[in-house]
Every structure is written in structure tokens, then in C-alpha cells.
């Protein structure tokens, strides 16, 4: 940490240097704690963490020492406080975090429950150690002081990603702090039954390519609060999928993990704009067309029974 203090003094002195000179100086030297930026996008929401990465440099213990004291408001990084930038609102460990950029601080404890402070005033030097204040978003996070592996360099990562969010992990030496977040879904698979009923039924399929003589039927049902569809004979790739409404009578396809469909499982991929169903009602009969990204017609169907 002594190096970081010296670095802080150097940074302060650099403030007096003409701005035009700073970039070349900043980029042309070895730093004890090199900068990293890491991002994860989930359903269009981008979470970015930027931080300088301190190294152990031979230390056997970091937490609970002069380097990082118990009870200290510590930024997980070096130099200027680590930042968390979210381009849309997320829910982090159950706490809403509005779109914005935040300085990241943690109240370091010897037990497994830490408090993370997200500070809208970002850009503080690591020695600022801000006291918890009303402006901070306070989030409870999990700390494990005996992780299986050891990280010589403080490391942020996104070790798991789902359709709805991800896990952020910070590890240095054997201390691992993790927190889950969820994003606001862009599309919903849910639809009131009263609105869904007009689409239900069996639709024999007519291939757009006349040479394709495949005989199949699209069967649309209502389950788990939304429209579900499947091809008969079964399509092993599509299996049972969600019809997700994206416009009036316009739907796209949400694919499920195989075993999760009827357990209200997660959609793992949405096929927009590659697979679009547009329904129309002609002479009292519902019909649809399926088109791809380039608007080419793949196939169409006309309902024979509701």
C-alpha cells in the first residue's frame, strides 16, 4: 500500500502538469497496480467494472492487517476507487441500483457478511475511506475468506451468467466476495390468458419453399402464464418454446433449456430478429407467417382448430 500512497502523491502533483502531457505520462510507465476494465452484457444491460489491480507481492495475509483493516471502508482495488458503471438499472443482491456510475467501497469484516457502498461520487482516491452516508447505496454481499484457490492479483470476474443476470466476484488472495444481480428483462414471455386465447390451436404448416414437402403442424397452447408452441413432429432444436410478444400480433421465439419448459424455467435465447411470427385473422381464421432477419418467408400456417 505504501506504493499506492506514493502514487497518490504523484497523481496529485500531476494535477499541476498541463493536461496535454498527462496521457503520455499515464500510459508509458509500469504501475504496481495496473488498470483493468471488465464488462458483462446480459439482455442488453451492460455492467462495467474499472479498477486498478494490486498484487500480493509476497504478502501472506492482506485482510485484517495494516494493508486492509477490519472495519475499514475499503475500495476493492488500488489508486482511484474502483468504479461500477451500469447502463440500465439493475437489482444487485436484492437492492435496486439505478443507471449510473458509482465508486465501489466495502466495509471489511472478519465475518462472512460485508456491506458494499456504491457512491455516486466516484473518482475518490483509495485513501478517502468515505464514511457511510445517505448518498450511498448500501448492499449486503457475501464474503468467503477461505476460497479454494488464491489470486495473487485482485481480480473481478463474472463467474456465472444467466438469462436474467449474473454474479460479480471479487477475489484477492483467498478472500472472495460475491454478489448476484438481475437485469430488467427486455421482453416478457408472460401474457394474460384472455389475450392469448385468440392464438391457441393447431396450425398445419405450408413451407415457403415448394420443394420442401415436410409435413408438420405448429401447436400453440397456454401454460405458465404465456403462449407456448411446439412443432409436430417434434423439432429437437426448438422443442417447446415461448412465443414472446414484441408488437401487436407479432411474436418472436424464446428457447428454453430442455427440461425447464414446464417448470417455468429460464429462456436462454430469444430469436429476434431471426425468427418472427406475424398473425393475421382472415375470414375469421387465424393464420401466421414466419419470417427471418432478411424478411424472407420461411413458412406459414393456418389454424384448423382452436
Amino acid at each position, binding site marked *: 500500500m505504501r506504493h499506492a500512497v506514493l502514487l497518490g502523491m504523484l497523481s496529485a502533483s500531476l494535477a499541476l502538469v498541463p493536461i496535454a502531457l498527462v496521457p503520455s505520462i499515464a500510459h508509458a510507465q509500469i504501475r504496481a497496480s495496473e488498470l483493468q476494465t471488465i464488462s458483462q452484457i446480459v439482455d442488453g444491460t451492460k455492467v462495467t467494472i474499472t479498477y486498478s489491480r494490486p498484487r500480493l507481492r509476497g504478502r501472506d495475509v492482506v485482510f485484517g492487517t495494516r494493508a486492509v483493516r477490519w472495519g475499514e471502508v475499503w475500495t476493492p482495488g488500488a489508486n482511484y476507487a474502483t468504479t461500477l458503471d451500469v447502463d440500465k438499472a439493475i437489482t444487485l443482491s436484492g437492492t435496486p441500483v439505478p443507471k449510473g456510475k458509482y465508486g465501489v467501497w466495502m466495509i471489511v469484516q472478519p465475518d462472512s457478511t460485508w456491506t458494499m457502498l456504491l457512491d455516486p461520487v466516484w473518482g475518490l482516491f483509495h485513501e478517502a475511506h468515505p464514511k457511510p452516508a445517505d448518498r450511498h447505496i448500501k448492499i449486503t454481499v457475501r464474503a468467503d475468506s477461505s476460497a479454494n484457490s488464491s489470486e495473487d492479483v485482485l481480480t473481478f470476474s463474472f463467474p456465472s451468467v444467466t438469462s436474467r443476470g449474473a454474479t460479480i466476484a471479487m477475489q484477492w488472495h483467498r478472500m472472495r466476495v460475491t454478489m448476484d444481480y438481475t437485469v430488467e428483462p427486455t421482453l416478457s414471455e408472460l401474457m394474460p390468458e384472455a389475450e392469448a386465447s385468440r392464438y391457441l390451436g393447431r396450425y398445419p404448416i405450408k413451407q415457403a419453399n415448394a420443394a420442401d414437402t415436410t409435413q408438420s403442424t405448429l401447436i400453440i397452447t397456454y401454460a405458465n402464464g404465456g403462449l407456448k408452441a411446439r412443432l409436430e413432429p417434434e423439432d429437437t432444436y426448438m422443442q417447446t418454446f415461448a412465443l414472446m410478444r414484441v408488437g401487436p400480433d407479432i411474436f418472436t421465439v424464446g428457447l428454453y433449456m430442455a427440461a425447464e419448459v414446464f417448470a417455468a424455467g429460464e429462456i436462454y435465447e430469444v430469436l429476434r*430478429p431471426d425468427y418472427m411470427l406475424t398473425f393475421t385473422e382472415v375470414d375469421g381464421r387465424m393464420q401466421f407467417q414466419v419470417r427471418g432477419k432478411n424478411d424472407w418467408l420461411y413458412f406459414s400456417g393456418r389454424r384448423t382448430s382452436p
Partner: protein
Amino acid sequence: MVCLGAVAATLPSPLRAQLARLGSVHPTPRPGITGGKVATAEMLDGDKGLTELFDNVRNIPQVVDGIRCHCGCADLHGHYSLLTCYEGANAMARICPICQGEGRVAVRMAKAGKSLADIRIAIDAQYG
């Protein structure tokens, strides 16, 4: 600039919310706009498929000029509408599948007599 507010107001609330999140804002077609700058067959090196698409777009400038392109080019300097994607020898629609897809949707729906508002909804639903 025109938004989908009037149309969206008639939709069920969850769908309305989805459209709102898409933040779709389409340009207003410029009075007297023509397809005169749309790339020609010669500029397209004789590519048959592209030439047909570009020719069709050239015929409906008042429609295509009222559509926002969702490929990201709408934020470029000098870009006004989907029509811009089809203009000049270096037209982005020569290579961009989103520009091409939106153009094909616009052409197909315009031929079917659909309104600009309906075309915008379909394009937002698929590419927005």
C-alpha cells in the same frame, strides 16, 4: 420527429411498456423527398438481389424516409432515415443485413397497402 405514442396507447400495458423501453423514435418523412440518390444497379455491381431491393426502395422514398434504422447507423453524422442507408455508391444497405431487412419489410408491407405507422410497428418489433 414522430413517436409511436398514439398507436402504443391502444396496446395492452405490458406491450406498451416493452415498446416504451425500445425507445423507438422515427424520423418524419421530408416533404418532396425522392429516391434519386438511391444506389443504382451500376453502383451495386449488377447484384440482382440487391438491385431489386434498392429499386423497390427507390419507389417508396416517402415511406422509407419515415423509418429509423436500428442497425446503429442512425447515430452517424448526416444520417436521416432508412433511406440514407440506401443512398450513394457506398450505401450501408449494400452490406448491412439490418438495413436490408428493414427495407424488405417496408417494401413488402407498403405493397400490401399498410400504413407507415403499421410498417414502423413491424420494424420496431423485429429490429428495435
